[in-house]
């Protein structure tokens, strides 16, 4: 074992929770592996001893994942190596604990980048691939999991296996968006695409959800845009009674930020790009180096950190909605959503195309046009018990209206809801669990997959 092992008494508070700050648990030991063989050896040992194993990257999760109650916690951030990137390369090999920001900075030096990047680049490759990984280019390229050529995975048996969409696809598609249930991502070969050095973003604003939806669809279908980012943004108006208690209410607006990449000296044709869009207002047009665009939310996250809200409870509720149901959901949810819970958070909307993803376990509604919707609050810990029923009902409401939760957030499903979430993929997922993690030691406490009972 070349990595470092810490016993329970040496574990820092940071590694007893995750970004959600909803759950805490103290692991029995922490492993900072040096390479895949360390992970394999630790899993074999844990399997023999009947010790549950949880895996952690940047721990941006908000449910009972990336933490361990008395078991072994493998902190993959010690495996963050990024392979060489030649100019014109079509892929790069990175370790599971590599941080996306480092991957982007390495690849951009050769004018390349992974096709899909998450808004938060401080998370790890293994972490987002285990969830799916969506971003502002997902309308073109699907999830990050769809842009992987090959994975090296340590199974729940301790075996190290290489797989890809065509090579051992059952394993590959059980790992992508598989929440670490069948294996640990030791490394990934990520596809790359050519990137132009500059971006231009148009800050468009809508005062009407239907018009906003029409224009986001027009933008998606036009295939003119490299990145599509949108939000629901509250303008507080005063207070009104909600169940008899006065709370701040808002008029909601819909910022829409379509972006194109371009070469220095060849700026895009604004008029042609914006043709067919009908915003309430066009507030600003921003030119940024592409790296700065990829890192555009860093100043926001930095503000949240300095303001103290980064340490609040984050019961994020993200869902993929059927396109035609989205206005109904917005009408149901936004009028009574207190803007105060978005201090240190925001409401995201991301238009997407269903056919861009082949992932089995990234669940989304049927239909080609989809809308991602995320309510990402930051709630001071003393108010969490009060807010919890509202957040849990929001989740139930969006599911009842045809949505599929995106599982990086706070999820409180019972077994029936888990089965309903995975639908016809549940049997595939459970079979993969039985095959690749036969003793059910990997990442317990979240998805209630059944592994065969341990012998002896």
């Amino acid at each position, binding site marked *: 074992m070349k990595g470092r092992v810490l016993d329970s008494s040496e574990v820092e508070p940071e590694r007893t929770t995750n970004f959600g700050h909803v759950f805490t648990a103290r692991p029995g030991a922490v492993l900072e592996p040096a390479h895949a063989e360390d992970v394999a050896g630790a899993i074999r040992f844990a399997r023999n001893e009947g010790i549950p194993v949880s895996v952690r990257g940047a721990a941006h999760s908000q449910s009972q994942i990336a933490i361990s109650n008395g078991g072994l916690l493998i902190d993959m951030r010690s495996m963050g190596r990024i392979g060489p990137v030649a100019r014109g390369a079509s892929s790069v090999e990175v370790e599971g604990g590599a941080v996306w920001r480092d991957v982007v900075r390495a690849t951009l030096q050769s004018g390349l980048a992974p096709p899909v990047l998450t808004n938060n680049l401080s998370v790890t490759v293994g972490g987002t691939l285990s969830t799916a990984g969506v971003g502002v280019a997902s309308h073109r390229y699907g999830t990050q999991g769809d842009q992987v050529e090959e994975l090296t995975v340590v199974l729940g048996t301790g075996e190290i296996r290489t797989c890809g969409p065509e090579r051992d696809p059952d394993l590959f598609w059980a790992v992508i968006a598989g929440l670490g249930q069948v294996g640990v991502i030791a490394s990934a070969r990520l596809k790359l695409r050519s990137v132009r050095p500059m971006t231009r973003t148009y800050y468009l604003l809508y005062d009407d959800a239907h018009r906003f939806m029409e224009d986001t669809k027009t933008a998606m279908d036009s295939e003119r845009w490299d990145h599509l980012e949108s939000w629901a943004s509250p303008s507080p108006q005063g207070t009104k009674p*909600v169940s008899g208690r006065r709370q701040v209410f808002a008029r909601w607006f819909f910022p829409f930020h379509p972006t194109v990449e371009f070469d220095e000296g060849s700026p895009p044709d604004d008029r042609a790009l914006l043709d067919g869009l009908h915003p309430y207002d066009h507030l600003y047009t921003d030119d940024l180096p592409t790296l700065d665009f990829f890192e555009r939310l860093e100043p926001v996250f930095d503000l949240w950190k300095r303001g103290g809200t980064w340490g609040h409870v984050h019961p994020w509720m993200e869902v993929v909605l059927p396109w035609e149901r989205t206005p109904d959901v917005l009408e149901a*949810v936004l009028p009574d959503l207190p803007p105060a819970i978005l201090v240190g958070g925001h409401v995201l909307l991301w238009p997407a195309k269903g056919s861009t993803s082949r992932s089995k376990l990234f669940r989304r509604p049927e239909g080609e046009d989809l809308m991602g919707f995320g309510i990402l609050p930051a709630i001071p810990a003393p108010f969490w018990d009060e807010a919890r029923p509202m957040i849990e009902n929001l989740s*139930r409401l969006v599911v009842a209206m045809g949505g599929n939760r995106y599982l990086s957030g706070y999820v409180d499903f019972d077994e029936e809801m888990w089965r309903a979430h995975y639908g016809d993929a549940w049997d595939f997922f459970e079979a993969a669990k039985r095959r690749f993690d036969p003793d059910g030691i990997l990442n317990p406490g979240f998805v209630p997959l059944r592994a065969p009972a341990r012998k002896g």
Partner: protein
Amino acid sequence: MAYRFGTAEYAKALCDEINRSSEYRNAASKWGVGFNGNLLFAFEADAALPKALYLLLRLKEGHCDGADFVPGPSHPDTGFTLRAPFQLWRDVLERRTLAATAILTGKMKIEGDKVTLLKHAGSSRSLIHCTASVPTEFPG
């Protein structure tokens, strides 16, 4: 003064409370527009309620046009039925359980277009608040 649950006086007091509520008037301003917004509350018999009761609320655009206990569960004027054992209703009406939780966990059954009801979540919530605001003498 507390109204005895299940009586015509209770039904009238509830309708009056709805029409006094600016919260309901605003939250339900689109309720019943283009669809039948009349709600039938079905209080199913249980240990505390020996015989089921059915309360029909005639609701449109933030206003209550009448409330009556009706003989059975299938009144022709009904747009939506909310059905639950009486004890659960009582928990909702006395604010021990959120109506949204009861509906979304399936403990309270809905008959009618569920999506329409969910879309107007604020209308349902403020209606339940009105109901909870009527001083009530419950059986059991």
